[in-house]
Each structure stands twice: as C-alpha cells, then as structure tokens.
C-alpha cells in the first residue's frame, strides 16, 4: 500500500492531526523525510489513497497543512 506524508508548520499541528486522525486511520508521526524539508520536526505518515479524506478532516478542524507528498517506493 502506497504511503505518503502530510507536513505541518510545526509539531503542534502534527500532534493535533494525529489526535484527530488516528482513531479512524492507520497513521504515525515520523521525522520529516530530509528530501522533503530540512525541518527538524515530525510529519504524519498516512495511507496515500486516503489522503483526501484525511485532509478534509484536518482542514475542517482548522489544522494548518504545509503539503502532502507520496513517499517514493523506489527510494532507498
């Protein structure tokens, strides 16, 4: 299953997103992949095909999102 990440402006929003999303989706807070940002914080790893549904919930709750990215499966 393809996975992606949602990036947030800060950890506050990432933790808020985890709390809102984790009851319904299989998500995990992970360090921001270096190729996406040099930020030292965390982002939310999500099942990529559910990204629209997840983003809708976050936007509805006023969680600031910086972007979402598909995690490349070939990259090692």
């Amino acid at each position, binding site marked *: 299953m393809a996975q992606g990440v949602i990036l947030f402006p*800060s*950890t*506050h929003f990432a933790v*808020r997103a985890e*709390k809102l999303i984790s009851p319904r989706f299989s998500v995990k807070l992970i360090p921001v992949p270096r190729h996406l940002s*040099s*930020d030292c914080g965390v982002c939310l790893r999500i099942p990529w095909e559910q990204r629209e549904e997840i983003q809708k919930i976050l936007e509805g709750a006023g969680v600031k999102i910086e972007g979402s990215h598909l995690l490349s499966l070939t990259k090692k």
Partner: protein
Amino acid sequence: MEKELVYLDNAATSHPKPEGVIQAMVRFMEDVGANPGRSGHRLSIEASRVIYEAREKVAQLFNICDPSRVVFGQNATEAINLGLKGLLRPGDHVITSSLEHNSVMRPLRALEKEGREVTVIPCSPEGFIDPHDVPKSIKKNTKMVFLNHGSNVVGTLQPLPEVGKICQNHSLLFFVDAAQTAGAVPIDVGRQKIDLLAFTGHKALFGPQGTGGLIIGEKVDEKKIVPLKRGGTGSRSEFEEQPDFLPDLCESGTPNGVGLAGLNAGLDFVRKLGIEKIRNHEIQLTERLLKGLQGIPGVIVYGSKDARKQCATVSFNVQGMANSEISLRLDEQFGILSRPGLHCAPSAHRTIGTFPEGTVRLSMSYLNTEEEIDITLRAVSQLAREGA
C-alpha cells in the same frame, strides 16, 4: 509532633497539589523526559503530545476553538508582558483599573515612558470598577482595556461581560488577567468578549510553579505580535527568522515540559470536579471566613464582604496590630500560613485605603476545608483579644 499546617496562601500559589499532578510530573521525568518538538523519536513525540493535551484542555476550559492560540510561558506575568509589549505601539492608549497587580502596572509604567498612554480608572473602596467609567476614558488612540478578573488583594470579581461589551462596541482589545480566577471561577472567552487572557498554571489550575500562558483571541492579528523572545522552536529550522504563526511565534526555547505535564494533570483535576463545584465550595469557605472575621471585635475586613462577588481571597487587619505581626503569630503559634503586606499591588491598597501598611491576606483553594476556616477564626479571635 508538629501540628498540621493550615495553608491559606493559595493566591500566591496553591498547595497542596493533587496527587495526580505530582504523579504526572514524575512520570514525565521517568518515562518521557525528551525535548518536545525537537526530534522525531518516540519520546520527543510523547513529550509533544503531553504539551498538546495541556494546550487543548486550556482551550476547552476557556471555551476557545483553536488550541494553537494558547501560548504557554512561565507565568501570568510573562503572559501579561507579552500581550502588552507585543501589541501596544508608541502613541497607543491603554485603559486599566486601580486594582491591578504590579505584573500589569510595572510593564505599563515602563511602556508609558516609551510613548504609550495609560489611564487608570479608580475603583470603589470595595474594589469594583464601574463599567460606566470605561467609555468616559476612551480616546481616539485607545487600543486596549486591561482588567484583572479577581483581585489578588480583596478578591473582588470585576464585571467582565459589561466591560467586554464596551470594548467590542468601541473595537478595543479586551485583555483580562485571570491569575486569581482561572480554574476557580467560570471564564468564557467568547461570551465575555475577551481578546487576550493571561492565566497562571500554579494557582487554581493546580499545576506546578513555572507554568502559565496567554490566550490570544481570533480578533488579535498574530502577525502584529512582537514576541518577548525569539529562538529555536523546532519548526522552520531552515530559516533564521522567527515563525510568524502561533504558538511557535511566542514559544521559543525548550518549554517547561515537566511543568506542563503537571499542569495537564491539574487541568484534569479541575475538569473532573467541574468549575461550578469548585466555585461553590470556595464560596462556602469564603462566606464562613468573611462572616467569622466580621464578628471578631477589632477586626477590619476589606472588599465586597460578599462571597458571591469575589474569589476566595480575603484581606483583613486587626486594630492596633501590624499585619506582619499577625501573620507571624498565625504561623508560629497556630501553623496558619497567610501573607501580610502589599501583595505586589500598591495601587489596589491605595484604593481600599490600606496603603502603605497593607493587610493580612487569607486565600483558599478547593482543597481547604470548613474546619480549617474555623481553626483560623479561633486563632484570629485569640490574637485580637490578646492584642499587640
């Protein structure tokens, strides 16, 4: 064997703390311990979660939707400094009351020297502001009204909804100091039209010292806030400029993680009981104390003398005795811990007519009992009889 102490200095800091607060802090130190928001490992994330939980609970307690608008800091003083220095520009006018604490007066007096105008509305000798005095003080350049919710000297509760409405009608920011009331008296930021609310974590919210914060309402444009300090936030690390969003804008450097873990548990304690239950118990204690003190010959009680119009803080003097002497003897002879003097609020004492001597202050928390009030009343009665 040492007799049990009666702690009546809760307006300075609440004591004892609920067991859950101590346990939460030990758990944070033993099992979490990491720096929140600075890394992606499990312990750092767990530390971030603890702080997020506390932030969300503060938001819920004061009825605001967006927890990112709760900015944590060291105490209410820091929050007040942030709100005043961060938003008032040279040429701006601010209105406040004569009942304010030095945590407000001192930054305001300093800002006055740097080109801001300050109007202090005198309160009644009982310690109440008359809301009608607010519009009379509004000028073209008025930007903010600052008001304490509950006095740290006489406990009087100010009419927040009335003043809030005036601020809304005149498009002024309404800044409230809830150091004495957050956790003990209901506060609804929306209904009371509050734009900025400074709170402390270590009084009626039962957290440890070194916790507090500022709630920044939706009407306040965060882009216009000048933070007190700038530094590492764990976010936007690639830039050397401070992030311009809340809460990171105003929270630089490693936060008081263990303290906020304690505050988080203190918020649970308050939520479980409910503010209404806490308030009712404190009204009962205050009523008992006020009534008892007024019945002791030679005792002068200050403030409203109406438990429903004040928080659980009572000021008194005994004729012919220095308040420092009363406080000392209450401690040494009876194990009752009070606070004498001016309580960092000289203007409030001028208002109630007790400057520069001050008063003896007795301040309760939810954890005090009627029995402790009775012990205190017997002690004050004995001291007043014995005289100086």
